């Protein structure tokens, strides 16, 4: 019998596993990420350039509107530029969050060809979808750093404090994305409703206006709004060179872990029924 192996043997049992994922899954996740990036801008002449230009354009508009048209000021601040910096340090992560959620929610239904024809862990699709939010986040962070330097702020080591926040943000959003992606298979309205819900969430959280502008009673509650916690996690290090409050990091960590594990369990429970709808 000639060997048909040709160097590809599925190695099972010896591989490292994490939450039911192994190394092959990690490789596949990278593949999906690459695929998602390509597919989103496929067919457009400029291709991936849009991944950078789109968020940049959005933030350029905000800068123009708030700095030159509205001339908004933060309470106690001298310039409009500081308001723009404050706004974008919250709006950038928000842009990433909404991008992550939108992409991961449609990820399973949008890749039905793959789901029907390839044996793989479908959890990877919403996870990859959520990680797509890294692109607008990177762009907005670069834009923000440029604004900060322009306004005379010197780069500081404490800026690195956004890294744990960034990590927790993606864990949190991935968890929600897993839930929404699974629900969207059965209730296709999810992906339709999502932009509206996101819009409501955006204006209900202290991203466009500071927490102090809200009524006192609401402030106490809004402090624990996950999006407020995430936004503060970026604002404290970038704007005030301070570490985010330890309680907020701990709170976010617990929230993220719960969201992610809950999302994963929920997704895995529902994915057995996907074949009825895909």
């Amino acid at each position: 019998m000639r060997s048909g192996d040709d160097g590809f043997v599925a190695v099972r049992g010896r591989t490292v596993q994490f939450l039911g994922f192994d190394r092959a899954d990690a490789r596949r996740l990278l593949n999906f990420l690459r695929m998602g990036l390509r597919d989103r801008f496929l067919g457009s002449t400029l291709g991936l350039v849009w991944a950078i230009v789109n968020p940049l354009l959005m933030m350029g508009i905000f800068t123009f509107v708030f700095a030159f048209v509205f001339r908004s000021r933060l309470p106690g601040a001298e310039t409009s530029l500081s308001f723009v910096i404050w706004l974008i340090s919250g709006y950038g992560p928000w842009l990433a969050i909404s991008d992550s959620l939108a992409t991961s929610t449609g990820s399973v239904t949008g890749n039905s060809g793959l789901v029907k024809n390839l044996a793989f862990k479908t959890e990877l699709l919403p996870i990859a979808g959520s990680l797509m939010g890294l692109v607008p986040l990177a762009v907005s962070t670069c834009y923000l750093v440029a604004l900060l330097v322009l306004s005379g702020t010197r780069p500081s080591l404490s800026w690195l404090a956004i890294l744990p926040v960034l990590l927790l943000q993606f864990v949190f959003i991935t968890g929600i994305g897993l839930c929404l992606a699974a629900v969207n298979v059965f209730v296709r309205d999810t992906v339709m409703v999502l932009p509206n819900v996101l819009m409501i969430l955006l204006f209900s959280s202290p991203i466009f206006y500071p927490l102090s502008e809200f009524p006192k009673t609401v402030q106490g509650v809004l402090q624990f709004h996950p999006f407020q916690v995430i936004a503060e996690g970026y604002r404290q290090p970038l704007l005030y060179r301070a570490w985010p409050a330890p309680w907020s990091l701990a709170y976010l960590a617990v929230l993220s872990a719960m969201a992610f594990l809950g999302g994963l369990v929920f997704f895995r429970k529902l994915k057995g029924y996907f074949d009825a709808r895909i």
Partner: protein
Amino acid sequence: MPGSSGAGGLLATAVPGAAGEETAARSVIECLDLGKTFVVLDGQSIWRVVFGGDSVKGFTALRNVTLQVRQGEFLGVLGRNGAGKSTLLRTLGGVYASTSGTVRVAGLVSSIYELGMVGNQLLTGHDFARRWLSLHGTGRRRVVRLLSEIAEFAELGDYFDNPIYTYSAGMKARLFFSVATSLPGQIYLIDEVLSVGDEHFQTKCWRRLRERLAAGASGILATHDWTAVLKLCREACVLERGRIVDRGSSPAVVQRYLGLPQPHGDAAAFAAHLPSVYCALAEEDTTLSIPIDVKVASPVWFACSVESFRQGIGWSHLLQVEPRPVASTAGLYEVEVTIPSLPLSPGEYSLNLFLSERGAEGTLVPLDVRSWTYGNDLAFAVAGKPRESVTILPLRWRGRQTQS
């Protein structure tokens, strides 16, 4: 050993299946009592699935499916649309989770469930192939090598670098088949795709499958194209509403699947004590005696043939005896067929016997038949010294240099 023997040994084709049958072939696909139920979703049960997940009405697509495929074999799964063929393949391939029973698949699976493109129509054929390969865990260097093979096999020319939406249906099919069979997998799960493309491409598809088979591949072919099953599969089964309702040798299964009429042998028949196996020695004079029972006083014609089955090629005639009259009155007869120096190499063959009468316009009308086309052929076991060819013709040949 070409050239070493002066007479005999016509080197034409490889010896049929004999080798595969003798080695105790391990099974590469096994499923036991496999069941698959799809939930039926309506306005209410959707919410129950999403939030409760308890008992929801189901549609049973597969029930109690038990089958086994041995290394080097292709199993044919016949069935009409909606019989559960695709569900069976997807469940075996791990795309669907089974509801009950066990599935064991030993080896790397290459599956072609449908010719649907995985992904974006805006991709070029080249990018599609690259994506497919990397999604199947192929390393980058290997991908580069395989891509040129795929381009060559699919014969898309410059179109290989054009977006898929510019392709014709046939071109898509060619691309997909080339990509999906580019990895020399060990196990193929193929659904209904051997009837794609033009004749030229079909020939290539079959050639590729034969190559893979020769390299030890195994698999399942699910189709309603029974000719493909006859060509590729030694054994087959029929799926009907999710159950296996028939199984056995492919010709027999196909015969029953098509519901072909069987001659009932009222006028003349092979006698009840007709053996089911005839044995003979290769390159020895062989006599086969066949008992027949003629019940009417009219001329009965007899014919027989020895045929062989090779996977991926199908059935071929090796020896054939022209129809000749053997009886014209009622009674028991013994037909003796003598084959001097049996020109077959050792192996299992199919012995086919025909009794017929002359109908109107001189055509032969079958009275009783033992043939693979009816699924009731006899085995013809030939023992002896192994040869590299199937048939051993009394040829003499020598090579001589004509120019230096």
